């Protein structure tokens, strides 16, 4: 053992080094997020609770095709479709139930939807003492969509890109269908 190594051992060199490190960290800014007081910044692709969307005129987008039900890996969506009264060619979801307790927030339902009637919101504060409040029906899902997408734009982050322009065009085309006005 060399002299410096011996001195290092006698005077607890490594321990002193460690003590210095912890002492320095005492004056560093803490990384703690005081969560209920300060909310975290969510990433752009964050997937919170699912919601149902409307067209700008307030009618539901959902056509009751139940593709979301098929796409859902945990089987939490149940759709019962029905004919729109007076318009036999149009269908809509008579009941649409969504069980948040078993949802895995994968977003497959949103991908599957052919009419963009579904969207993942950034809501995550859904803790509850009553499990029944987490079993949502169509009105509740529409309400979530209304408060999260007040201007009916589903993916505002994409605006300006080619993909986004295409998307906006498509939304516009579907938002103001000629048939609806005349029917």
């Amino acid at each position, binding site marked *: 053992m060399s002299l410096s190594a011996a001195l290092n051992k006698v005077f607890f060199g490594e*321990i002193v080094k460690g003590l210095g490190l912890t002492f320095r960290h005492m004056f560093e800014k*803490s990384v703690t997020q005081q969560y209920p007081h300060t909310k975290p910044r969510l990433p752009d692709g964050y997937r919170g609770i699912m919601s149902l969307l409307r067209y700008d005129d307030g009618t539901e987008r959902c056509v009751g095709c139940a593709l979301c039900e098929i796409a859902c890996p945990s089987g939490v969506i149940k759709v019962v479709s029905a004919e729109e009264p007076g318009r036999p060619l149009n269908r809509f979801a008579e009941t649409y139930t969504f069980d948040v307790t078993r949802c895995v927030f994968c977003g497959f339902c949103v991908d599957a939807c052919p009419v963009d009637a579904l969207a993942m919101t950034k809501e995550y504060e859904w803790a509850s003492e009553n499990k029944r409040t987490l079993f949502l029906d169509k009105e509740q899902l529409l309400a979530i969509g209304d408060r999260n997408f007040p201007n009916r734009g589903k993916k505002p982050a994409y605006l300006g890109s080619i993909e986004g322009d295409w998307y906006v065009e498509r939304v516009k085309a579907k938002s103001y269908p000629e048939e609806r006005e005349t029917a």
Partner: protein
Amino acid sequence: MNMVTQLVVILGTIGVVMVTVLLHVAYLTYLERKFLGWMQDRMGPMEVGYHGLLQPIADGLKLFMKEDIIPSGANKIIFSLAPILSLIPALIGFAVIPWGDGKLTLFGVTFRPFVTDLNIGILYLLALSSVGAYGILLGGWASNSKYSLLGGLRSAAQVISYELALGMSLVGVLLLAGSLSLVKIAQAQAGGFWHWYAFALPFPQIVALVLYGIAAVAETNRLPFDLPEAESELVAGFFTEYSGMRFAFFFLAEYANMILVSCIAAIVFLGGWHAPFPFLDFVPGIVWFLLKVYVFLFFFFWIRATLPRLRYDQLMTFGWKVMLPLVLANILITSVAAYFWMR
């Protein structure tokens, strides 16, 4: 009449000391959590009161409300006795701790800043710290649980190993002071920090102070020597089966012991209530005393935040093969130095 007033004064002093110690113990838990948090880039308790200042009170209330469970296989009498046996020695140790100097005479009644001045103060404290180990050992045995028993056994082995180094590291100072009374030892260190036994001629006891510090950490079962309650190995060690108030008693005992060993270090090595420079004498002695105690307590937290737990054989090897020879060498050199110095 005189005896009655004397009794009232003594009881009053005891009451004041107990309340002070228990308050310090309560806020020591808060301080520890804060310091640990800061050292780990966290914040520590923040919710109850301003920056979590009421957290110890909330914790105390919670422990009062908790269900008091006695395991079905436990020895009920010893199980109930053990926390008390652990806490009482930690608290009555404060009887001989001098918090300051001088006396105050009001209406013919003399008040002193300590409960009593035993002429065997240090011996009394060392004896009590060994009795405290009985609480841990019996509590571990009476719980009828593997983890508790192992924790208790480890505590017994650890206390025996480190009690020696702890007592021996104080012997150097006893040789120089020529007294076992804590008041006399503190009084002998008046007049600046170069008269404190840690730095004083003929032989500075700084090595003994470091060794005492290590032994004190081991004696109070704190990290990195917290093998009796090693949570990653033994759940919670000797108090695995304890809950509610009995758990709180063990908890209080641990922190009271921390304050007690810090008080001994401050008095024996760092001059007790004396100011580091004579021109600072206008500051009350209790301020200096508490400052020294809290510096020592800060080391407890600091070491806890820095070092991982030792393996058990490392603990024993360190205690017997490193600590003991070093304290014996310290006694030898100190006695030779004291012999020639005093001639």
